[in-house]
């Protein structure tokens, strides 16, 4: 039978000792061993971001990392985003802006957005879109997701958001954002 190993890690702030096979991905370990099924499997190739967790402050696709590699790391998952019964601002803003439809990509988006805002509390719309480019959403066209993250950043910084829910983005904002995106593409 397979050669299971003990892994000591930290998950959502708590020390965890777990037993897994070396071939199991971190995603499998989270979902099947620890029953933390909030991280989702969408592709197993790192292209959709549904399994995104934050490890030592960086977003990572948990499908592309072995569970044994989590030894000694600090792993944050969607299950640890809220504080007790209080939702994180990002979670609240996703709900207020109707940023999810089916919701399968939502945990991954929230973790990517969390990693972004922890490093860059005041991102531009282009920076938000760049940071979320590794997360695919097929339902929303991203607009309401970007609004929620923008609003969350503003709320966390004590500013009021420049876009309320719904309605159209002013034309100059839209084309300005696209030019910024194009400029960024050009930059690479």
């Amino acid at each position, binding site marked *: 039978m397979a050669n299971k190993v003990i892994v000591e890690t930290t998950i959502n702030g708590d020390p965890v000792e777990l037993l897994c096979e*070396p*071939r199991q991905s971190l995603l499998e370990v989270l979902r099947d061993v620890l029953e933390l099924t909030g991280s989702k499997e969408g592709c197993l190739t790192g292209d959709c971001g549904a399994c995104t967790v934050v490890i030592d402050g*960086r977003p990572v*696709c948990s499908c*592309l*990392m072995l569970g044994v590699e989590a030894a000694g790391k600090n792993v944050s998952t969607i299950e640890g985003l809220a504080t007790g019964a209080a939702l994180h601002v990002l979670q609240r803003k996703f709900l207020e802006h109707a940023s999810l439809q089916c919701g399968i990509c939502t945990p991954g988006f929230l973790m*990517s957005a969390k990693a972004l805002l922890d490093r860059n509390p005041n991102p531009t719309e282009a920076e938000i879109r760049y940071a979320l480019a*590794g997360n695919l959403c097929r339902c929303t066209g991203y607009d309401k997701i970007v609004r929620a993250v923008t609003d969350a950043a503003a709320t966390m910084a004590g500013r009021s958001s420049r876009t309320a829910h719904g309605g159209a983005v002013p034309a100059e904002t839209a084309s300005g954002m696209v030019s910024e995106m194009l400029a960024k*593409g050009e930059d*690479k």
Partner: protein
Amino acid sequence: MHAITYETPKSLDEAVKLMAAHGEKARALSGGTDLLIQLRAGTRRPEYVVNIKNIPELTRISFSLQHGLKLGAAVPCIEIHENGDMRKYYPGLTEAAHLIGSLQIQSRASVGGNLCNGSPAADATPALIALGAQARVVGPKGERMVPVESFCLAPGRTVLQPGELLVEFHIPAPERRASDAYLRFIPRNEMDIAVVGVGAALTLDMSDDRVVAARIALGAVGPTPILAAEAAKSLIGKPLDAAAIDNAARLAIAASSPIDDMRGTAEFRRHVVGVLTRRTLAKAAERARE
């Protein structure tokens, strides 16, 4: 996935011994963003997976203006982008590393892994070749330096022998009025594999702005990344004007040998080699002049 044994050496010595002991049965695990996909698909079936991310030599960036750069093979791409020296002195390599997949991928994937995976479309490889990078390889028979342009042999195959490990890259210190650039073409704005990638490094004369040194490398347009030596040579001693750039672009196209696939046709790729060679040279020159 088949069952594997996982090893975590803490020193280069230990890693080399493990790799040597298991030979063909072992595969080094750097970021794992290619390897895990291959293990799942069954296209690689190593019995031993050796995590090399706990070895100091493989995970550090050391730079000085005197000695140049030593870039550990397992340094995650995001750390390259976050390093001020890298951004300042090797902007082309840095932007190549920053183009590999999403931020999630860059948090894990390394330039060394990108090279060892042996893909002709690896973004970092043309940038490394343009900079004249040498790969330090350590194995059971000792160590050797391999110019990066000679590292890949065929899609998925490299010069690494069973038991050998890529440790780091040695890259010369930048000269004055020198810089590099890397551009790739992808259909979307992120996440795709390069359909064409072009890396270029240029040194311009202090007084008359003529090209003193040049290297151009192409990705995704042949079975391995390509050093477009003729294209680069054509620039030497000339001012970098439109005619010189056009000529270099023509020679770069001649150096490419693309195929038709789901990412683009050969005809399209040849055309884009020209377009990107022009754009990359212009960008490297602009940076060199700064």
